[in-house]
């Protein structure tokens, strides 16, 4: 079915016009690209703003120019030169120039939220209105990826100033759609920006975003055709929607992977053998089946999923092996098992996984007590490393560095498991400054192997990224990175 609709999409000429209603589970907190942290905010922002580069539709991790017509990188990987498209206009009619690019990057750094991505920027120069030269202190391998990140958007300085520095509810963008109205928790209305610099795009006249939190309500809304696109389809609803005529359900392996985190600081879990025993004792297939209805992709090695260039296909834990697990427990001196607590936030899938893990670990003598905690308390506890086990997830996004560095490098803030392996540290540091992709691929493959063997986390699976839509929606790309910028190319066959 999916194939069929893809074939159709390519064979017909796009039609302009129409109004599209799209629904996400939650609403954004802010429209300010440089402050936003949630995916919901990102989806609004990426349709309102342009970035220097962008992800290529239908790929995972490949980039193409957006505002940048072309770009070059110096030999040493420290100087980036971007040529901008000419005649680009902001929604208020102001021209977009290299000054705005410089201003935006400086604003990102000032706003702190994503400052670390630009911490090695030495200077930004604007030799003319359409040229930007960024000089780094040292090579940063994922730098282009960072620039393509939808929330590292180019904003209009004037608008920022008009709004006293806050873009929470304002539109300072130059993207395909412009803001009409945002009523929090009700709707966000975007309309076509007629002066969008890519001629002929977007096709849609209007896009309406509606947050619907309740799952039943959301699928019902789609099936009643109150909405055209539903993002983030839950695994259990996939079958249900596929069985309906007139809808397309499209899935790709995403970047959101879930794991069983093991705090390596203290107790039995500090023992590598115990952690490995746990890794062997977990039945990922069964978890996938029960929790995700078989819709997720089981992780038997490192966390970077199939389809990503940095995926490592060494099967370290190919199948559950209780014998091995028990053996390892015995070697570690915990033949009789022990008790641990497992903290989890009220996210239903993770709560479910925790319950099953509890049952699975019982078989090697580990008694797990599951504690659900209200999200902010939970994340607070994780940050303070105040947990023994946890089931939680991580959005890897695009570059392998984003996948691994912050969570596995010694001492990094998100290294909640308190994991430390000098060899891994070395590899991760190296991967950061290596520009050549082939070389990086090897580095990250090694790192993933080491990490999987050390098992500070038991990688469970990568979730699919699934959207469902009415079949008259064409050229809507379901991207692993959860972006929806393809709305720029989407059209309605009505």
């Amino acid at each position, binding site marked *: 079915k999916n194939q069929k609709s893809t074939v159709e999409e390519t064979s017909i000429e796009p039609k302009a016009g129409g109004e599209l209603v799209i629904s996400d589970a939650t609403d954004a907190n802010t429209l300010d690209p440089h402050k936003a942290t949630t995916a919901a905010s990102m989806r609004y922002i990426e349709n309102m703003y342009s970035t220097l580069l962008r992800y290529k539709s239908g790929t995972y991790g490949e980039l193409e120019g957006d505002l940048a017509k072309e770009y070059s990188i110096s030999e040493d990987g420290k100087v980036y030169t971007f040529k901008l498209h000419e005649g680009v206009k902001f929604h208020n009619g102001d021209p977009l120039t290299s000054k705005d690019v410089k201003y935006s990057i400086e604003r990102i750094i000032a706003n702190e939220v994503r400052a670390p991505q630009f911490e090695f920027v030495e200077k930004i120069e604007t030799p003319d209105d359409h040229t930007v030269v960024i000089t780094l202190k040292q090579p940063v391998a994922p730098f282009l990826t960072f620039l393509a990140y939808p929330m590292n958007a180019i904003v209009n300085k004037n608008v920022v100033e008009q709004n006293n520095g806050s873009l929470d509810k304002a539109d300072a963008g130059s993207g395909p759609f412009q803001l009409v109205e945002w009523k929090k928790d009700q709707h966000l209305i975007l309309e076509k920006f007629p002066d969008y610099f890519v001629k002929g795009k977007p096709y849609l006249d209007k896009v309406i975003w509606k947050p619907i939190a309740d*799952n039943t309500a959301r699928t019902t809304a789609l099936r009643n055709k109150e909405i055209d696109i539903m993002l983030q389809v839950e695994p*259990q609803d996939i079958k249900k929607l596929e069985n309906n005529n007139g809808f397309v359900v499209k899935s790709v392996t995403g970047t959101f992977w879930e794991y069983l985190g093991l705090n390596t600081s203290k107790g039995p879990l500090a023992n590598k053998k115990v952690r490995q025993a746990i890794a062997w004792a977990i039945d990922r297939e069964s978890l996938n089946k029960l929790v995700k209805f078989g819709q997720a992709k089981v992780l038997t090695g490192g966390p970077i999923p199939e389809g990503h260039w940095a995926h490592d296909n060494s099967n370290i834990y190919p199948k559950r092996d209780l014998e091995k697990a028990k053996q390892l427990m015995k070697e570690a001196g915990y033949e009789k098992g022990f008790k641990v607590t497992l903290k989890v936030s009220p996210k239903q899938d993770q709560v*479910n996984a925790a319950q099953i893990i509890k049952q699975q670990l019982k078989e090697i003598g580990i008694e797990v007590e599951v504690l659900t905690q209200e999200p902010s308390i939970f994340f607070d506890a994780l940050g303070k490393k105040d947990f023994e086990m946890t089931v939680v997830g991580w959005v890897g996004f695009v570059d392998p560095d984003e996948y691994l560095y912050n969570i596995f490098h010694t001492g990094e803030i998100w290294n909640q498991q308190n994991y430390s392996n000098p060899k891994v540290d070395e590899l991760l540091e190296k991967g950061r400054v290596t520009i050549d992709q082939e070389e990086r691929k090897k580095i990250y493959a090694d790192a993933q192997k080491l990490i999987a063997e050390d098992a500070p986390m038991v990688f469970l699976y990568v979730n699919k990224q699934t959207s469902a839509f009415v079949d008259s929606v064409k050229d809507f790309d379901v991207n692993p990175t959860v972006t929806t910028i393809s709305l720029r190319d989407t059209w309605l066959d009505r």
Partner: protein
Amino acid sequence: MKEFWYRFYKNKLAFSGLIIMVVYAILALLAPLIAPYGPLEMHPDQMLSAPNSEHIFGTDQFGRDIFSRIIYGTQISLKVGTISVGISLILGVTMGVVAAYYGKWVDSLVSRTTDVLFSFPDILLALALMAVLGTSLTNVMIAIGIVYTPIFARLTRGSVLSIKNSLYVEAARSIGVSNLQIVLRHILPNVMAPIIVQATLSFALAILTEAALSFLGLGVEPDTPSWGIMLNEGKDFMETAWWIAVFPGLAITLAVLSLNVMGDGMRDALDPHLKDEVM
């Protein structure tokens, strides 16, 4: 008292409510004997199977037997009901008696405090308390207990105020009976009727509140077979696997219903106006 039981017994609806609650209590006590499976026992190969001879209420997402979980859930719900109502009963009745009996500023203080607590909608207050206390069965019971305290305080205060000036209390005072004795022997036994009725109703509310808290993810530990949690888990399967939500839903509704008819029946049985009427 005999009269009361007789009239209660005659009220078929209320009496069947009592019977149902007794059955629930038996189920709770004998759960391990009655339930065919363990409440946590998973059968991955039988996930989401519809009611059949092996699993008469079907299974849930993990292949756990719904019937068994409901039976074990009875333990939880009755425990939540009993203990949280117990807490509010003890706190509320004490507050009410003290306020009404001592009057003056004590009364003002207690009354205003109950007014304040009363002003917070039950779910919201329970939610905030759960956030403070952290999720666990004990905390659910404490939170619900606190939330329903003001009702009992008000009710008790009102009843005590009306009885405080009754002639028989005056008679006891004229004899020289001490305040404590008056409260214990004369006032409490005579205000218990409306309080007991309220207790059955609050019991029902407590079950519902636990369910709502679990629905919002702030209830008991996640694999506890609480009716509320089961309901919440089943909510998303309402269409594909209705049995997951429907059976615990029915269990809740039936329990709440029974408690309510019991409460109503008790009220009627205690009401002297209805004494001589035909049934």
